């Protein structure tokens, strides 16, 4: 964790002199790589004969400036934010839960299996609530194996969570095709929750209220990690396991709790996508949001507000480039080029920052 973060943690930013002087460089080093990535991607666009200004302009117009685009972007942030909330908990507790995509998909399938089945039998809000709850529990359960292995055997969770994510994706698929198949359609998919029974829209826009859930989740996690006893326990384990046991913390229990929370949020993210937007799970559906959110959370240095900002930016990029792909013939995967170069420049900037901090002491 960086110095800057320790400062953010102490929460006394405003009372101290030179906050701006200290945060200036960090802001620069976050925005700098984004600009550099834009320039670098422009060169690539030029090389393939596309006017970068037209492309970026189009992305901006479709992702941010048009009413429809903006509401699509905002809707897309909901699952990303819930995933980010889970990742922040895990990363700050020193647990590298890279299995969020499996946990996400199984949560999605669980909610898609339950909600249409009980819909009509129970009041709408209860259906949604139960759908979310089940998804959270299923997500958490899918992390039990890596959690126990890490907590009691010290097995590296990076490997186990990656393995369970592959298994989870296949299992979700199998469940859709074999168990929860909707007999009413020819497309292999689960039964569909009717549109009026999904998460309510915000006011008279088309934005799903999953956005609010996501925002609350990230902010709540941010506050909990920085301001509560539980958060400090997790951070202590994340910073130094030996010290944590010296302080009398039960490291295995906290590890299991971290996994459960983190994977639970991933499950909720899956539910928000199904109960808010899609209504069902199609076979072979795997948006792999988790893999995209992980670098963003790093880029934000695990800071809640910064994460929200970056995820919004990323959603705009996603939605905008989806339209741009259709209109300008630039493949959708070009977003990956943009994001990847952003990460590379971020890495370079981080390296320089460390170097400079060391020089400055």
């Amino acid at each position, binding site marked *: *964790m960086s*110095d800057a973060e*320790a*400062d953010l*943690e*102490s*929460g*006394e930013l405003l009372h*101290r002199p030179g906050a701006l002087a200290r945060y200036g460089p960090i802001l620069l080093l976050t925005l700098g790589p984004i600009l550099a990535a834009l320039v670098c991607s422009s060169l690539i666009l030029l090389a393939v004969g596309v006017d970068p200004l037209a492309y970026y302009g189009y992305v901006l117009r479709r992702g941010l400036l048009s009413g429809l685009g903006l509401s699509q972007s905002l809707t897309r942030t909901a699952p990303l934010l819930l995933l980010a909330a889970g990742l922040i908990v895990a990363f700050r507790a020193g647990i590298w839960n890279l299995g969020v995509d499996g946990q996400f998909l199984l949560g999605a399938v669980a909610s898609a299996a339950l909600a249409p089945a009980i819909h009509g039998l129970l009041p709408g809000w209860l259906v949604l609530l139960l759908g979310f709850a089940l998804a959270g529990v299923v997500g958490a359960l899918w992390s039990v194996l890596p959690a126990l292995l890490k907590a009691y055997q010290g097995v590296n969770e990076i490997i186990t969570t990656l393995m369970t994510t592959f298994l989870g994706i296949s299992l979700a698929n199998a469940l859709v095709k074999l168990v929860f198949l909707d007999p009413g359609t020819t497309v292999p998919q689960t039964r569909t929750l009717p549109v009026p029974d999904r998460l309510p829209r915000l006011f008279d826009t088309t934005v799903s209220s999953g956005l609010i859930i996501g925002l609350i989740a990230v902010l709540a996690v941010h506050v909990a990690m920085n*301001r*509560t*006893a*539980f958060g*400090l*326990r997790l*951070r*202590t384990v994340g*910073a*130094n396991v*030996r*010290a944590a*046991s*010296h*302080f*009398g*913390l*039960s490291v295995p229990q906290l590890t299991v709790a971290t996994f459960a929370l983190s994977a639970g949020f991933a499950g909720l993210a899956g539910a928000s996508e199904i109960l808010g937007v899609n209504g069902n799970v199609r076979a072979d559906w795997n948006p792999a949001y988790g893999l995209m959110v992980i670098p963003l959370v790093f880029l934000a240095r695990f800071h809640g507000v910064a994460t929200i900002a970056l995820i919004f930016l990323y959603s705009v990029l996603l939605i905008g480039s989806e339209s741009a792909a259709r209109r300008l013939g630039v493949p959708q995967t070009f977003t990956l080029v943009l994001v990847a170069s952003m990460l590379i420049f971020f890495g370079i900037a981080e390296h320089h920052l460390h170097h400079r901090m*060391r*020089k400055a*002491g």
Partner: protein
Amino acid sequence: MPNQCARSSPWQSSELEGLARNADPVAGAANSNAVGLASVTKRFPGVVAVDDVSLSFRAGEVHVLLGENGAGKSTIVGMLAGVLQPDSGGLTLAGEPVQLSSPFESLSFGISTVFQHAMLVPTLTVFENLVLGDAWWRRSSRSQMEERIAELQELFGLQVPLDAMTGELSLGEQQQIEIARALLRDCSVLILDEATSMLTPQGVDELGGRMRRLADRGLSIIFITHKLTEAYRFGDRVSVLKLGRLAGEIGKDSLKAASEASAVEDMLRLMFGGEESAATPAPQPDRTAGEVRLAAANLRIDGGSVNMAHSEISLAVRSGEILGIAGIDGNGQKQLAEALAGQRPILAGRLDLDGEDVTDASVGRRRALGLRYLTDDRLDEGSVGMFPVADNTVLKEIGAPPFWSRGIERPARIAEHARDLIKRFAVRTPNEFTPISNLSGGNIQKLLLGRELSGTAKVVVFNKPTYGLDMQNSVDSRRRIRAVANSGIAVLLISTDLDEIIELSDRIAVMDRGRICGVLENNSSAPREMRTRVGRLMVGDAAMEAAA
């Protein structure tokens, strides 16, 4: 970059054969300036750690740096090792200005450093740590390494178990490995930052002799210590730092001409400006031991790397009593302390705290019942380096009032508590928000001591409470330990410093290879006699001691 010091490699076989006799320095080397600082200033947020210091370290000399905790010694070392950069002024190498902008550069100029805090990778074996960082084409083979280690062992009494997992060794053992690693490198400047703080008295003597021989070969040695007698015995020249400034120097001639007592007097005067009375130990007050607070009966402990499973440990500490535990580092003292604190499983036996069975109680439960444990590993176990000082003062009571209310942190209360500890224990820190890893070793120790003593303590286990502290702070800490006992708390004092044990303890238990091999009534008025009696037990001579 060229390796400038192959000439003075301590590992050329000719040197090994004739170390003492062949003390013929390369012509002219003895007085040449090996490395130096020219008007160097280094600031950290809130402190000037090194303030316009000019120093030159000559080839062929052992140059001692003295100074209180936080005086700036390690900061100077950091700059010479390429880890820190001066804010103004510069370094010189053989008289020429030079910039050491990375540890790699420093090493390639022949500057080899043993840092104050262990820099080994805990998850690698000792062998792997020793070869780490060598270029692959020059990497020593296992058998070469064994040979060189065997030489070290013989010359120097270093114990280097090549296959042990580094993280499982005691800090003293790790320190020996760091010294070995530095000696294995070819270098022209050797820096030892408090490298003797964990060695046995013999180990220290051997290191002293070794430094002398290396200096005679033309190396420049920078030796940092808090023990003034070591400074006198091993040093050619002494520089004293005070609050980042150079407070004075004792030259080669005056150091050699002075007697030990008057040299120590001089150093004290430079360090403390005439308050040398601080060094004289306070007389031992009368204490009456009360009822038994901590009682261990036939404890069997899972010792990890130390085999303790076959030994049963029994001991009792009464309120107002100090039970010293002496022994060579790495003989199970740390394991015992951890088992008492609840961090390490007790396999069999029974532990009572103030009459309550706590054999299976958690760390938190024991702390709530009044058991406190001050670990010797301040940086890696006792504190979380990147957390602010304030958070570190409450990490043992996360969630407890008044610092949390219903699980919600109350930062103002925590900060107030921290400021109070900082004041009462005279901790030097810019403020309570500084990450604790920025404090000097001695100041971290004071803060942790404060943390353990706050609240109602009934039994305090101290593990090497004064290692790395300067004289003033050691005296203060010892006075505090005594005051703790006087206030009716039972004290278990684990230390490898015999003088400290004899000065403070009422009774002395000696640990050897995982068991307690004898308990003596202390007689602090005859320290010399006690030293030999305890020393005999320490080296495993229980029979002789029984006969004497």
